[in-house]
């Protein structure tokens, strides 16, 4: 039970943030950080049980009709992710309180951050595929809001829209994939899918490839793999704490997490291996290349994140026990150093007033603690011993060398890492020790950030160093996480700093040397990269072109359909109706319509003649008012017909509706003058009117010829009094038997009423202004 409590806490904390921020803006960050910190302690306290193999789990039905269950499960992988999410969350809340202290809508920011955290915890804890998807979409949406948090800036809005379009489209593909998967496997429970016979069914089934492609579409978009990566650099318009939290440490790992979770089920096939390894390798190298070419601190880090995500996917593609271990370790390594570097970027931005790397230099004197943290994090990113990054990189090389990819893959990884080393030197080292300060702000005014802002990077960087020196501390946890993906064999993880003189060490040294050389000769390289404008090619072009196409399509169809002319609207609506009717009649009914049922009595004939006369008057008269009255007469005569045929409820409603319609139209005509172009010859409308009217009559004659469903009518007639205590069957159906339908209909009605009222009021206000 407490597992679900842990999951729901952050959702409950979202409204709390409104209260806390009102009480004290200054301390709000610190106070709210207690929520994720407390959650982290709780998850940590579960660790001994999880490592023993006693996995806390709950399983409650939620919407049994859909097979949706509220099922949570905490295994090694979930635990590792949950600790990262809550731990980073605590630091980010603490940091944001100061970073955004003076900003408007701070409480809203916290609330969205809490919603995001809840969604993210849901992803890693969910044991039900649909629950996981729901949480997946929660993170997509909160990410959209947080990227566009500075919503008055066009750039932020554009970036938020792009992130939403790409990740939400991927999310739709994922939903279809998961539903298909659940259908083939016969369960939506993620843990039960892994039962051997179900795995057989999925892998051997004909729907394996569609499922794989759909799931990959979802995970690749979320985890920013080429060619879907373009949203991540744009997302850097988000406030820095968001970039550190969502777009480095947690959300972008959701795709990797799901791939890892599903790898025992979907992995191990040739399609899996080639797709993941290929896309991962391309992403790794191109991400690092793009990172090197950027001068904006955060964008550089974002591209570097793309590169790392590529490496993680690549490792999952290899799928060996060692690759899984390397994936888990490298994921943790990256969360620590990238979180730190993003927070450092925020400090530099906050204190020096710029994010342009060439403008800052020698900051170590001004920002000693931040600078030290940045240095340690950058060294971890480069993979220099004795930092944790070195341990992770060694494992990656070993896994590449041992796996099916062999030397070619290891060399590709080395190329990516070399580029990354140069990027790390540019971002984490040079601004602090080399170069000169050239930002707009006088250098003397740059001070060390308040402790709540340097605490995060310092803590993360220290952890990177401590874990490098004593990697055994995390060995059980990381081993359990690897075991959750790759089984018992992957669980035998041994972390150590010194692996001996291995090919991996050679590759590590070579990439460090190459990266260092690249950094030393960076000036021409950077010029070349910037001249190429790599980020504008390929996927970026594709995205821009498809967005433009979509907009043009929307404009074109709006011009045609929403012309502003009532006549056009009616013509479009009626021709659609007529066309569909004609199609149905032509396809389904070849027989000529039967004659009218029963004979027509004299008084009925009289009413019909009256209707016909009024209708002819309505279309021929020149006066709008006469036309309206004539239409009213048609309606009232119709009410008479209802009364003749034993439908008093209908007749009564028809009378009142008709009366109100005439009044409404009179009011409308008194407000909106008949425009000149509406006065073209009326006979042009006759063909359409006659055709649609004729088709409707034809269809109605067919309908009347079908014997009514006596069983349903009988049900209502016999059950109306005993079960619903009403003699008027029409009303009983409306308010009792089908009350849910009525509720839906009246909700639509009320919504339209509110909408119309608001339209009138804003219209009046605009007219007053002009």
């Amino acid at each position: 039970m407490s597992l679900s409590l842990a999951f729901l806490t952050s959702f409950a904390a979202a409204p709390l943030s409104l209260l806390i921020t009102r009480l004290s803006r200054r301390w709000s960050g610190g106070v709210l950080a207690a929520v994720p910190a407390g959650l982290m302690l709780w998850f940590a306290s579960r660790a001994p049980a999880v490592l023993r193999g006693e996995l806390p789990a709950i399983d409650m039905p939620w919407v049994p009709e859909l097979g949706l269950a509220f099922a949570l499960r905490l295994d090694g992988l979930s635990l590792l992710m949950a600790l990262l999410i809550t731990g980073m969350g605590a630091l980010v809340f603490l940091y944001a309180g100061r970073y955004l202290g003076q900003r408007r809508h701070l409480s809203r920011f916290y609330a969205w951050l809490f919603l995001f955290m809840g969604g993210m915890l849901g992803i890693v804890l969910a044991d039900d595929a649909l629950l996981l998807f729901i949480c997946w979409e929660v993170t997509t949406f909160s990410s959209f809001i947080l990227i566009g948090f500075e919503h008055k800036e066009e750039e932020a809005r554009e970036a938020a829209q792009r992130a939403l379009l790409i990740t939400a489209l991927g999310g739709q593909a994922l939903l279809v994939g998961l539903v298909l998967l659940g259908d083939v496997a016969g369960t939506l429970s993620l843990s039960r899918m892994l039962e051997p016979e179900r795995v057989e069914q999925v892998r051997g089934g004909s729907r394996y490839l569609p499922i794989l492609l759909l799931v990959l579409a979802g995970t690749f978009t979320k985890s920013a793999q080429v060619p879907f990566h373009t949203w991540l650099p744009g997302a850097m318009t988000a406030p820095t704490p968001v970039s550190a939290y969502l777009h480095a440490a947690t959300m972008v790992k959701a795709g990797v997490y799901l791939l890892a979770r599903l790898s025992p089920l979907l992995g191990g096939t040739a399609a899996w291996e080639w797709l993941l390894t290929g896309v991962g390798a391309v992403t790794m190298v191109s991400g690092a290349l793009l990172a090197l070419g950027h001068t904006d601190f955060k964008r550089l880090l974002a591209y570097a994140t793309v590169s790392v995500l590529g490496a993680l996917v690549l490792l999952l593609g290899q799928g060996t026990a060692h690759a899984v271990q390397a994936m888990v370790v490298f994921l943790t390594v990256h969360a620590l150093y990238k979180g730190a570097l993003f927070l450092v970027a925020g400090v530099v931005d906050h204190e020096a007033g710029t994010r342009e790397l060439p403008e800052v230099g020698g900051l170590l004197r001004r920002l000693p603690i931040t600078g030290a943290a940045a240095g340690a994090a950058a060294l971890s990113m480069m993979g220099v011993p004795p930092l944790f990054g070195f341990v992770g990189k060694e494992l990656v090389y070993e896994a590449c060398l041992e796996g099916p990819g062999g030397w070619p893959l290891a060399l590709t990884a080395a190329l990516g890492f070399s580029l990354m080393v140069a990027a790390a030197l540019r971002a984490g080292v040079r601004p602090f020790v080399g170069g000169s300060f050239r930002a707009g702000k006088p250098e003397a005014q740059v001070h060390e950030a308040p402790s709540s802002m340097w605490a995060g990077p310092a803590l993360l960087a220290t952890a990177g160093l401590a874990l490098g020196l004593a990697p055994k501390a995390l060995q059980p946890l990381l081993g359990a996480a690897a075991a959750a993906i790759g089984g018992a064999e992957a669980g035998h993880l041994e972390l150590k700093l010194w692996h001996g003189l291995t090919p991996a060490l050679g590759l590590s040294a070579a990439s460090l040397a190459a990266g260092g050389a690249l950094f030393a000769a960076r000036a021409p390289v950077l010029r070349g990269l910037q001249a190429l404008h790599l980020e504008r090619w390929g996927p970026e072009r594709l995205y821009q072109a498809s967005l433009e196409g979509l907009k043009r399509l929307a404009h074109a169809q709006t011009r045609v359909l929403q012309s502003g002319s009532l006549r056009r609207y009616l013509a479009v609506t009626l021709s659609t109706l007529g066309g569909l009717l004609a199609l149905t009649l032509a396809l389904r009914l070849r027989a000529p319509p039967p004659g009218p049922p029963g004979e027509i009595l004299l008084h009925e004939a009289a009413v019909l003649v009256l209707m016909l006369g009024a209708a002819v008057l309505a279309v021929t008269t020149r006066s709008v008012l006469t036309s309206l009255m004539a239409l009213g007469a048609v309606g009232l005569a119709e009410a008479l017909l209802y009364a003749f045929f034993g439908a008093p409820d209908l007749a009564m409603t028809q009378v009142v509706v008709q009366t109100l319609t005439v009044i409404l139209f009179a009011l409308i005509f008194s407000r909106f003058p008949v425009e000149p172009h509406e006065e073209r010859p009326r006979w042009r409308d006759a063909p359409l009117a006659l055709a649609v009217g004729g088709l409707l009559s034809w269809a109605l004659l067919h309908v009347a010829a079908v014997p009514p469903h006596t069983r349903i009518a009988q049900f209502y007639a016999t059950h109306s009094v005993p079960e619903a205590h009403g003699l008027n069957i029409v009303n009983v159906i409306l308010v009792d038997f089908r009350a849910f339908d009525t509720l839906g209909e009246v909700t639509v009605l009320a919504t339209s009423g509110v909408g119309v009222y608001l339209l009138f009021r804003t219209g009046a206000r605009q007219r007053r202004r002009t």
Partner: protein
Amino acid sequence: MNPVVLCTVARMMAPVLLLFSLVLTVRGHDSPGGGFVGGLLATAAFTLLLVAQPEELVRRRPRVDPTRLAITGLLVALGSGLPALFLGRPFLTGLWAQVPLPGGGALKLGTPQLFDAGVYLLVLGTAMAFILGLLHGEEEEAREREG
């Protein structure tokens, strides 16, 4: 038509129409009627007043915002479905009670009647929103022409 005649008739008829709309709503469960037609009839009554005495509208804006009325109606209709939930039955299940009357006989009360009352308010509010929106616009334009 002579405005004086229209005005007099409207003043006499509007209360009758309103009363009849309530009758229609209450009796709807057993005889022709119901919340929908009742709400429409009430709208017709108010509209008659407004059309007969437009100056009344200028002098006294309606005290109740029609959209608020519509939302209230929606909430009432939604609320009528809740008691069933507390009894563990599906949402909107009709619940009935017989209240004995002093002169013998019994009055039956049920949640579907509450639902219908909600529909009545909602339809009245929505239809009045349309009509008031149009009338206000007209009145404002008239004021602009004068001023």
